[in-house]
């Protein structure tokens, strides 16, 4: 909460962005405390990692210092005060935290918890709900991410002929950082793969794995010089990869249609239903992972490849 206030008061946008990263990490710890391991994982990877890097590269293209506002803060404060009071009044009726009789724990949740591990056959219920029971939603989310990536491409674009300047990076030639990064990057990539394929047993899955995999490449680009990642993963591939991920997801749905089952009903994929579910979830998570990875990395390319023109 204090960090939030500090983020409002400061005019140095660099500090604001860094504080926001710290805030995200604390939020992740809070989620962990509330038994939401998958969510904490995602928030730590996305909020503290990728968002901070993106906002910083956005800042590089704009200005670091904010000009002092000339308007009086009274009217916004009044609006915020009234809305806040209304919300406070509303939460008086909210179910207490951890109350087993709360509506959340009454409706579909018991079914997911009791039947999920039997029907889908994987211990991590979050993955089961994400990829199997609510596969439609997740398909929609994947397409949203894909579309957002496309829109960023349209707005900024990746320069076709990036000037690869290996060795020239924003932070200069830092031997220690390079050595550490060199040791870390393979581990990051390996860990991402573990998260990807182990998501049905422990915390993890396509969303987290894609982000972590992209983080490895972002780190490489930051440390070893602008544009050196372009040589490893050309931008032209990324567009195709992003589309490929959505295609895998949709393709699984179409295959299950061809077997006379509903769209994204994985029981069609193998002779026994649980095996089919396993295969389907694995493929779908793979599609999600590929799309998230390529969208995050191409967004990073788009921001880092642009130089300040104004």
């Amino acid at each position, binding site marked *: 909460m204090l960090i939030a206030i500090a983020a409002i008061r400061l005019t140095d946008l660099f500090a604001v*962005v860094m504080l926001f990263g710290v805030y995200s990490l604390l939020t992740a710890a809070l989620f962990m405390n509330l*038994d*939401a391991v998958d969510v904490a994982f995602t928030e730590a990877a996305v909020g503290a990692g990728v968002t901070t890097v993106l*906002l910083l590269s956005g800042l590089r293209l704009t200005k670091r210092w904010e000009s002092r506002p000339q308007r009086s803060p009274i009217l916004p404060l009044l609006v915020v005060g009234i*809305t806040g009071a209304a919300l*406070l009044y509303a939460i008086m009726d909210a179910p207490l935290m*951890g109350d087993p009789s709360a509506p959340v724990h009454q409706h579909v949740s018991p079914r997911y918890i009791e039947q999920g591990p039997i029907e889908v056959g994987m211990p991590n219920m979050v993955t089961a709900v994400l990829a199997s029971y609510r596969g439609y939603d997740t398909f929609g989310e994947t397409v*949203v991410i894909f579309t957002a990536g496309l829109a960023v491409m349209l707005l900024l674009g990746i320069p076709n002929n990036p000037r690869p300047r290996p060795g020239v990076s924003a932070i200069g030639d830092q031997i220690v950082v390079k050595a550490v990064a060199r040791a870390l990057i393979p581990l990051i990539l390996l860990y991402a793969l573990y998260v990807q394929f182990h998501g049905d047993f422990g915390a993890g899955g396509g969303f987290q794995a894609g*982000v972590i995999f992209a983080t490895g490449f972002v780190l490489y680009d930051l440390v070893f010089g602008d544009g050196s990642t372009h040589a490893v993963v050309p931008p032209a591939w990324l567009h195709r990869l992003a589309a490929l991920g959505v295609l895998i997801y949709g393709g699984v749905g179409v295959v299950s249609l061809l077997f006379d089952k509903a769209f994204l009903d994985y029981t069609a994929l193998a002779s026994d239903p649980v095996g089919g579910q396993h295969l389907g979830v694995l493929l779908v998570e793979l599609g999600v992972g590929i799309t998230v990875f390529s969208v995050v990395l191409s967004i990073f390319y788009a921001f880092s490849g642009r130089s300040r023109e104004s």
Partner: protein
Amino acid sequence: MSAVLGLYNYLIVVFLMMAGFYVVISQGNLVKKLVGLGLFQTSVFILYITMGNLSGGQAPIVAEGMTAYSSPLPHVLILTAIVVGVATTALGLALVVRIQEAYGSVEEDDIHAKDLADDEAHNEQAAGTEEAGR
């Protein structure tokens, strides 16, 4: 007393939400507005996760001898929302960068002033051509 403790997380949610809301409507800097939007977004995440929590429950991964688990459904919703959130933040940031290139500023006041000046110049030009036509 237990009511206060049980509602404590909701109080934090309301505070964070209002903090984010305040930033979005009162600050002129577009990058800061995005950060405010992020604050607002995380407050919603905390709200959902708080609701899904169950006292005495476990993280929703099957373990031996465990019967009570937190509800997995809010976790799923928020997990995807976080990743979609970063994608949309990136989109907003891309728009901000384009605005910076077009206007040379990311302050709302400057942008409005420039828009007004452009409109006036345009109107004068239009009036000028009309008179010339007569």
